[in-house]
């Protein structure tokens, strides 16, 4: 079942074609690795999918619907979650509040009930607290719940990142170099967490990483990008052994 | 022809705005923040020049003293205030510089409290020279303005020091890696900015006969508008063009001011100026560059 489909996307910026005729498909519950040289357009692709850039031509389909022109907020409400390359946590908020933000789309009360402090407000807040605690427990972060997110180590920040992203059970999760700044052990532990998330929440995951070895174990498929377009899409083993691609320096 | 004379009349103020615009632009390009104390340095230079002229010191010497004073104050504030707040965002630096300018203004008012307005003599008489009725002072201001524009452009574009300055303003991390002492270059440019402001102060001295400590604020705001219209923040990466742009922008503000004063509502020149700025920012907001980041 096709979850996300990108059809002939083109993005031109300052007279430079950054994304060229890009086709990309993600099936439900899949883990797809995205790899390529620097400036090949991987993060830009994420920006296009999540809505920070609008493509010049081409279409994006999510669960069959055309979401090309949707705003970032609307796409998030549809179930597309994303992390950013350099720290996508709110460093001045507590760990607990970070995850609470993750639940933003799923809390239902109006401004009026906030001001009047109606029963609905208190019920929803209680429900929120419980859900947040469950999520923190799942990632082993419950002891840090009142610490400022910026004070955590990179490894824990990465976990918090994911905790926030999957809080409302998104259908698609875009991870942009989440193991940046982690050492080898932390990175491998992180990959296990990704696998767990994928199994438990049935979330399709697209993962940008620089190290193909890291992707070997968990990705169902690896997609290679160069100069703004997809040049290969295959199982990780095949990509690794492909001589033609070996010349591209993955960085 | 009347309009031409009015425009020529405005050359003194226009050159003042132009020089201060240039000082602001250079300072902003090299250090990443707009140095608001230029307005107060302008006032200080006026008082210094007037003080020494009262003592019958020739005006050129007074000007040199004023330049020295302004340079020293500018560098001191840079070293002990601006450098310490640089690690925060650009906005914080701007707020700090606005704050410092208020502090200087208030210290000034405090010290000169008994004499808020100072009378001094227009040094250099106002002779008329031939063809169109152009005052001697207007001529001086115009010529110095043109000279600075030419000299500035050539200096920035063709000399080695000019190239270094351009490099530092574009990418100070790389220049540091190449062994250039960024701080010295920034101090040098700050010195030039202070010098320009002092020269503008001398223009004021030879033109007007009255000064008060509060004129700094409005003058710097108008010069800032001139600098912004001249391309501050947009034409990055081309310091030589910025030099020309800032000077022309500031000069244009002066001309515009005279036109509005004479042909439209008298007290409303500032409103027009600010509205023009608002419109300009509104139209161009997409093009503004953030220093360093994207």
């Amino acid at each position, binding site marked *: 079942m096709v979850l996300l489909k990108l059809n002939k996307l083109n993005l031109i910026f300052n007279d430079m074609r950054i994304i060229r005729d890009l086709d990309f498909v993600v099936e439900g519950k899949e883990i797809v690795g995205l790899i390529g040289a620097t400036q090949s357009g991987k993060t830009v692709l994420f920006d296009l999918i*999540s809505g*920070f850039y609008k493509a010049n031509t081409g279409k994006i389909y999510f669960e069959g619907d055309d979401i090309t022109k949707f705003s*970032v*907020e609307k796409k998030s*409400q549809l179930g597309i*979650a994303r992390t*950013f390359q350099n720290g*996508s*946590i*709110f460093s*001045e908020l507590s760990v607990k*509040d970070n995850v609470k*933000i*993750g639940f*933003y*789309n799923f*809390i239902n*009360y109006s*401004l009026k009930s*906030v*001001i009047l402090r109606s029963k609905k*407000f208190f019920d929803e807040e209680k429900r929120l607290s419980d859900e947040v605690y469950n999520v923190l427990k799942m990632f082993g972060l419950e002891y840090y719940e009142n610490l400022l997110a910026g004070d955590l180590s990179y490894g824990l920040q990465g976990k918090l990142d994911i905790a*926030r992203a999957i809080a409302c059970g998104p259908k698609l999760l875009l991870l942009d170099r989440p193991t940046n700044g982690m050492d080898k052990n932390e990175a491998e532990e992180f990959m296990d967490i990704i696998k767990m998330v994928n199994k438990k929440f049935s979330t399709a995951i697209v993962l940008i990483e620089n190290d193909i070895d890291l992707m070997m174990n968990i990705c169902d498929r690896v997609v290679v990008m160069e100069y703004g377009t997809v040049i290969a899409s295959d199982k990780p083993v095949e990509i690794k052994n492909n001589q033609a691609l070996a010349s591209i320096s993955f960085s | 022809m009347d309009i031409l004379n009015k425009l020529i009349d405005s050359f003194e103020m226009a050159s003042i705005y132009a020089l201060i615009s240039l000082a602001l632009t250079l300072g902003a390009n090299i250090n990443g923040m*707009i140095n608001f104390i230029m307005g107060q340095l302008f006032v200080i230079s006026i008082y210094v020049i007037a003080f020494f002229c009262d003592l019958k010191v020739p005006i050129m010497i007074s000007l040199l003293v004023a330049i020295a004073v302004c340079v020293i104050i500018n560098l001191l504030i840079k070293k002990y205030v601006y450098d*310490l*707040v640089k*690690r*925060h*965002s*650009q*906005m*914080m630096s*701007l*707020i*700090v510089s*606005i*704050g*410092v300018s*208020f*502090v200087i203004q*208030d*210290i000034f*008012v*405090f010290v000169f409290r008994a004499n808020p307005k100072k009378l001094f003599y227009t040094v250099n008489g106002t002779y008329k020279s031939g063809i169109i009725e152009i005052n001697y002072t207007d001529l001086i201001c115009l010529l110095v303005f043109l000279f600075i524009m030419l000299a500035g452009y050539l200096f920035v574009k063709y000399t080695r020091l000019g190239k270094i300055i351009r490099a530092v303003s574009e990418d100070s991390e790389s220049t540091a890696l190449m062994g250039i002492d960024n701080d010295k270059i920034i101090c040098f440019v700050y010195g030039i900015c202070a010098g320009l402001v002092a020269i503008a102060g001398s223009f004021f001295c030879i033109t007007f006969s009255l000064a008060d400590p509060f004129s700094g604020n409005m003058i710097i*705001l108008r010069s*800032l508008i001139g600098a*912004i219209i001249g391309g501050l*923040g947009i034409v990055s990466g081309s310091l030589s063009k910025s030099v020309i742009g800032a000077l022309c922008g500031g000069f244009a503000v002066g001309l515009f001011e005279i036109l509005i004063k004479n042909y439209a*509502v008298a*007290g*409303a020149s*500032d*409103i027009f100026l*600010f509205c023009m*700025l*608002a419109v300009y*920012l509104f139209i161009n*907001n997409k093009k*503004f560059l*953030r220093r360093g980041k994207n």
Partner: protein
Amino acid sequence: MTKRFLSYKGLLLLFGIYLVLLIGIKSEMINFYWEGIFKLALINIILVVSLNLATGLLGQLNLAHSAFMAIGAYTCVFITRNLFFPGFINFLFGLFLGGMAAMIFAYLISAPAMKIPGNYLIIATIAANEIIKDLIINLNILGGSSGIHGINYYSNFSFVYLIMALIIIFIYVIKDSKYGRAIMCIPQNEMLAKSCGIDTFHSKLFVFSIAAFFAGVAGGLYAHEMTVIEPNMFDFSYSLELLAMVIIGGLGNIIGSIVSAFIFSLMPYVFNIGSELKVIIHVVIMILVIIFMKKSLILDYKRFLMDTWSDVKKKIW
């Protein structure tokens, strides 16, 4: 920090301070002169708290607050003089419409305000301030540069305190909810906030407008307290002082704003400092705070003290 304030303890504190001050006034321990100063302090609290909301949120410092105040003040005076209701009701209308007028102005300048990078926003807000001031000076129905005199005196202490308390309660009520959390996170990482589903544009607009509304109301209270208003009172130097109070109290820190507004409003009168010296001290403290601030936007005095205490302990041991 924020959660429990809304509990009974917080409300009790608000009410308690009110009683203390009220008893002081009624028993003549606090004379008329000081009562006026306290009222100005309360008005400043409203201004500083609302400015904190606007600046912390937009992640941009803005100097237009005294313009909003000016609009509110002049509108309120206009209403109280010309509307047909009995005195105090006029005043209520005046306050509300003053706030609305300021809010409308904020709305008008908010579209460019959000797109322009921080530096230029500050200059643009200075420009907006000057435009408002110049307009007031040039329009004769607004009294010109000599201002408006003989305004009715409606702002009694209890009323001003009530308005301030309502505003503070309102801000805390919003802060401790999903909207408050959304508002808090926007300046930290706007792209991330957007990708979480938060409509950053409208949130910023909302907060900016509300802050302007409160500033307008404060302006109305101010006008009817001073009984005289003139354009020079609303110079952007007042905005700068308010901003200094915000920064010293800590961006995003509401109790900090309240405390710093209170202290800095009272300080010049306690120490008999002239108005120039007051500004100097104020700004110097602000600059010192900025120099020593550890984190860029949000200042937490508790952590700063804890950090310095642990540094000191390390040196001793």
